[in-house]
């Protein structure tokens, strides 16, 4: 089983993100489970979501305290995300520019990746009331980092669920998210293998 915890801000689209990832997981034959910590449904408030994928049906119903992957969609919640619980082999994916990530993530004891999801969203006009909606860029980035669902499965889900007017931009956001992930902290060979290996 692979467990991923997402931390974001209300309005970034994290709940839609986990839904789409779960559907992509379903397309490639995995058992899936995706749920938010349901609470403050307000733009800008911290949001926490959980995603599990496994080769067999999932009995767990509790939250995720030691994730294989920790996805942080806003630097504002990075500290809280880490405090919420990790394990030695947790792999981090953070929404940050590369230069900033090299300063802020380098000291953390985790293998880490950065993607500038905010710039991708702004570039492609994905803003709602001033809030860049970064979820589709993260769909691509999570696909790249976790190797749980290939970009083709993600693309398929985007095709199924995007309104025609947004289709092109969504495909492009996912593709850019996938291709622009930067490795910040080289994972220890062993921990990287355990986290990514568990995904197969």
């Amino acid at each position, binding site marked *: 089983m692979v467990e991923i915890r997402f931390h974001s801000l209300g309005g970034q689209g994290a709940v839609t993100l986990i839904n789409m990832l779960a559907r992509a997981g379903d397309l490639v034959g995995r058992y899936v489970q995706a*749920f938010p910590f*349901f609470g403050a449904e307000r733009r800008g408030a911290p949001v926490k979501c959980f995603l599990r994928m496994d080769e067999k049906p999932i009995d767990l119903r509790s939250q995720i305290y030691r994730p294989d992957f920790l996805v942080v969609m806003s630097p504002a919640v990075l500290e809280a995300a880490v405090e919420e619980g990790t394990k030695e082999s947790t792999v981090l994916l953070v929404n940050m520019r590369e230069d900033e990530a090299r300063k802020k993530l380098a000291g953390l004891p985790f293998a880490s990746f950065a993607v500038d999801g905010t710039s991708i969203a702004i570039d492609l006009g994905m803003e709602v009331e001033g809030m860049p909606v970064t979820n589709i860029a993260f769909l691509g980035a999570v696909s790249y980092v976790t190797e749980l669902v290939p970009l083709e499965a993600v693309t398929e889900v985007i095709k199924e669920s995007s309104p025609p007017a947004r289709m092109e931009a969504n495909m492009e956001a996912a593709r850019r998210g996938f291709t622009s992930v930067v490795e910040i902290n080289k994972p220890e060979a062993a921990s990287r293998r355990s986290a990514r290996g568990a995904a197969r």
Partner: protein
Amino acid sequence: MRLVETGNHVAAWGARLARVEVVSAYPITPQTQVIEEISRFIDEGEMDCEYIPVESEHSAMAAMIASAAMGVRSFSATSAHGLAYMHELLHWAAGIRLPMVMVNVNRALGPGWNIWCDHQDTLAARDTGWIQIHCASHQEILDSIIQAYRISEDPKVNLPVMVCYDAIFLSHNYMQVEVPDQETVDRFLPPFRSLWSLDLEHPLTHGSVIYPDDYEEVRYSMFQGLENAREVIKTAAEEYREKVGGYHGDLVDAYRMEDADHALVAMGSVASEARVAVDMLRERGYAFGLVRVRSYRPFPAEELAAFLAPLRTAMVIDRSISFGMEGPLFSEVKAALYGRGGVSVYDIVTGLGGRDITYELIAENAVAAAEGGLEPRTTWPSVRINEHHLLSKRGVEGLRGKGGAS
């Protein structure tokens, strides 16, 4: 067809496949998605059904009673305060023996205002005469709603059924579900043929004044209806497995009980988490199994006694509290075991107001129970009084000191 959906949308599919003709409901978190999805089905012509929007849950159930009394298959959904608000009408629906199905998304009662899971709302509706089925997975929600109509409409039962599932852990969780074909469901669930219905040509009255001469007989008949439901629930589960596929137990659902020395007893989503705890306990050398109470009313007293009486330990997980007593499931499990075997029964009350219950917490307490290290009464393993709670208490004491409150 396989879907990845929330438990709420899965419940809407259950109502759709059951060919429900009237839905009357009032939105309440965390149930709202159920009736939103049904509204969409109706709007897009996928469901031939009348949706009655109402101004309250009390009216929602009143409208359900009216439509069921016309011999129409009826569905509603509610949660927590909504269920509490319609409580009087729950008695009316069961008392005049109307088949219908309602979903209740198990949610804590305020104050403090809380939209998360526990079973206080549902268990407070225990003695209304409704059958209660508690689910642990998305597939079980779908399958149970369809089964519930068979149970409810069986002439030996003729009572309303509440299909219950946990807020957020199931209601807002995206998981896979196999949606059967309509034709397959139709083979299992024939159209509703009411034993009586309101008819202008042949007027009758139902549920009017009953003098002491007859009231007890009416209540005894309801009691018998619930007793009859035991067999009907089993038959429905078996026939569903044969004709549609999918089985989640009947009145109970047992896991690794064949060679167990100890057992966990639980209801709802935590009973799914408890399976993981059982596997973990087995690895540590404790032969635990799990008996999940699927039908809370009728209560599976015989089944529980048969599973638990020969064991050394049973630990009940209660997601609600009977104030002034103990965990309600604990009371009932002990009642079922009265005079049967020497099993030691323990109880943890946890997971109130959506607090997470992990398999680790379950396993830790189960080990303590098996080793005799748990007190033989209701204990609260996840309560942690912290500085924040003490501050509130001191604040009140401070106000008292100043004469601000007394």
